[in-house]
């Protein structure tokens, strides 16, 4: 840190020179006297042998939090030399807001002492952020000299998407082999009673239906349906985004994906994830808490990336999109490539449900709210509805979601009954 003269020093020098010039021209001693305080101010700069040495330490109250949470940043400054005026600015990444206190302070630190201050920041949007960049200015008491430096130590925080609890989710049309919560058409070990048939050698006696057996005077057994789980793949459209973070359609889609992943994992289903954007990212379907954490981690950096390459789902490994999986696509349906991929998936026999995230509200938030904007949004809403109707006619099961409404309420009708879709290319 090399001290340098501040604009104040140059201003004082200018005024001294001006006073001396005017004094010489007019031959008046008052102007020389008036220059004395300014010269004294300029000479009042402290010793500039070296900048004071101090150590800066930063602590965060949490490094993993959900959208809308607060984190308290504590900064500790310990000096070995006297530092009469240290200005400290903790750089905040975009989207991080000050909730309480200030991220810029001016402190005085004595030799061998430590000063601390704290402030709270609000994290309204998902993502990975670094709060470790700190800018320091050590001011001379006169204000005529300053030394500046920058300290960067990694202080990462991860802000996870808010996952609203949902009770109603689309029921998968087909089940898998592992134990789960769905009643399978297959008969076997389970608790859901199915057909009744005559007793055969090898049947377990505890399955004998005594009431029917007495009525028919012949042994009958009750068969049970198996409870099985399902494979669910969340297909996130990262080809298009509308609005500004944290209220963009992609943010809403990510929140919905997190909520759906949590709900399906709670039902013991295997949940996978595919980000369909500038490049393909995926997570193989699996179940359990670890998979839940992996899914949320993979949702965190979801963003639109420009690419000339058209992503194709048929290039995915087969285990990423299991043949009998329920595919839930989350998209504002603005990009034709994603719509084509959905129709292809449905035509290949996948059980596809599209959660269409309305882009109108997200866009309206960033517009001025003029009459022209309002008319444009209404026209766009009508056009978007027409597009949805066209896709429904092509055989896609589409759930329309306006991010202001609760996701659970939107999914409830489709969770109760869902027509078997037959897609046409």
């Amino acid at each position, binding site marked *: 840190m090399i001290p340098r003269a501040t604009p104040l020093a140059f*201003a004082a020098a200018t005024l001294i020179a*001006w006073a001396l010039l005017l004094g010489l021209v007019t031959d008046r001693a008052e102007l020389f006297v008036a220059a004395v*305080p*300014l010269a004294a101010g*300029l000479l009042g700069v402290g010793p500039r042998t070296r900048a004071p040495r101090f150590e800066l330490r930063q602590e965060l109250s949490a490094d993993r939090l959900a959208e809308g949470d607060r984190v308290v940043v504590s900064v500790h400054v310990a000096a070995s030399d006297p530092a009469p005026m240290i200005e400290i600015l903790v750089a905040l990444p975009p989207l991080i807001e000050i909730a309480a206190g200030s991220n810029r302070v001016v402190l005085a630190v004595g030799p061998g002492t430590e000063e601390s201050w704290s402030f709270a920041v609000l994290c309204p949007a998902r993502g990975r952020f670094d709060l470790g960049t700190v800018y320091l200015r050590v001011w001379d008491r006169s204000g005529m000299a300053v030394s500046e430096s920058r300290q960067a130590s990694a202080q990462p925080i991860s802000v996870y998407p808010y996952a609203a609890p949902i009770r109603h989710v689309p029921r998968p049309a087909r089940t898998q082999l592992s134990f789960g919560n769905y009643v399978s058409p297959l008969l076997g070990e389970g608790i859901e009673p199915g057909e009744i048939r005559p007793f055969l050698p090898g049947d377990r006696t505890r399955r004998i239906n005594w009431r029917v057996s007495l009525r028919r005077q012949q042994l009958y057994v009750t068969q049970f349906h198996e409870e099985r789980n399902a494979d669910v793949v969340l297909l996130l459209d990262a080809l298009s985004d509308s609005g500004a973070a944290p209220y963009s359609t992609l943010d809403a889609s990510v929140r919905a994906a997190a909520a759906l992943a949590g709900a399906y994992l709670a039902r013991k289903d295997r949940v996978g994830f595919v980000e369909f954007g500038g490049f393909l990212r995926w997570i193989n379907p699996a179940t359990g808490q670890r998979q839940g954490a992996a899914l949320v981690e993979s949702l965190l950096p979801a963003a639109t990336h420009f690419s000339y390459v058209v992503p194709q789902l048929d290039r995915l490994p087969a285990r990423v999109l299991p043949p009998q999986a329920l595919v839930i696509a989350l998209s504002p349906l603005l990009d034709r490539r994603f719509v084509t991929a959905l129709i292809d998936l449905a035509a290949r026999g996948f059980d596809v449900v599209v959660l269409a995230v309305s882009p109108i509200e997200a866009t309206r938030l960033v517009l001025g709210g003029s009459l022209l904007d309002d008319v444009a949004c209404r026209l766009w809403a009508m056009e978007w509805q027409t597009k949805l109707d066209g896709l429904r006619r092509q055989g896609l099961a589409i759930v329309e979601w306006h991010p202001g409404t609760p996701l659970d309420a939107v999914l409830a009708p489709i969770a109760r009954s869902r027509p078997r879709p037959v897609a046409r290319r």
Partner: protein
Amino acid sequence: MNRWWPLLPISVMAAVPIWVAPSAPVVALEAVACLFCALGVFRRRVGPVTAGGCIAMIGYTFAVWSTNHAVDVIGAAIFGLALLFVLDVSEFARRFHGAQIANDVMRAQTNYWLGRAALVAGAIAVLTLGGSAVAAIVPGSGRAVIAGLGAVIAFAGALYGGIVRRPS
């Protein structure tokens, strides 16, 4: 720091020349100087404050030149101190705008400013006494040379101390 604070030294800076010579040109010049300084304070720019100081000094020069009275050391010292405070306070408010300033920093800074003002007043008194003594000893033609040399040395010293000097 409240941005209204610099208005106090600005008003003192403008009042001294008007008190010396309450003529229309001086009032007009000081009004313009005040406007420039206020613009610099509220727009948080050093340039307009410096320009305002220069204009105020022109007004003060015109005032002392037009009255042609004996040398007013006290008025000049007050004017110079006011100029220094205008620069200091406006710059302090500018550079720490939006920052949270610790109470002990504010207290220490105020003490520093007041202490420096006292020192400057003492220095001016010593210089005045020294000047009177020199005036009694040195003949008339030599006084201008000594005054000029003193001014040049003071300016060079201030420049070296405040701007040019680098860490060893």
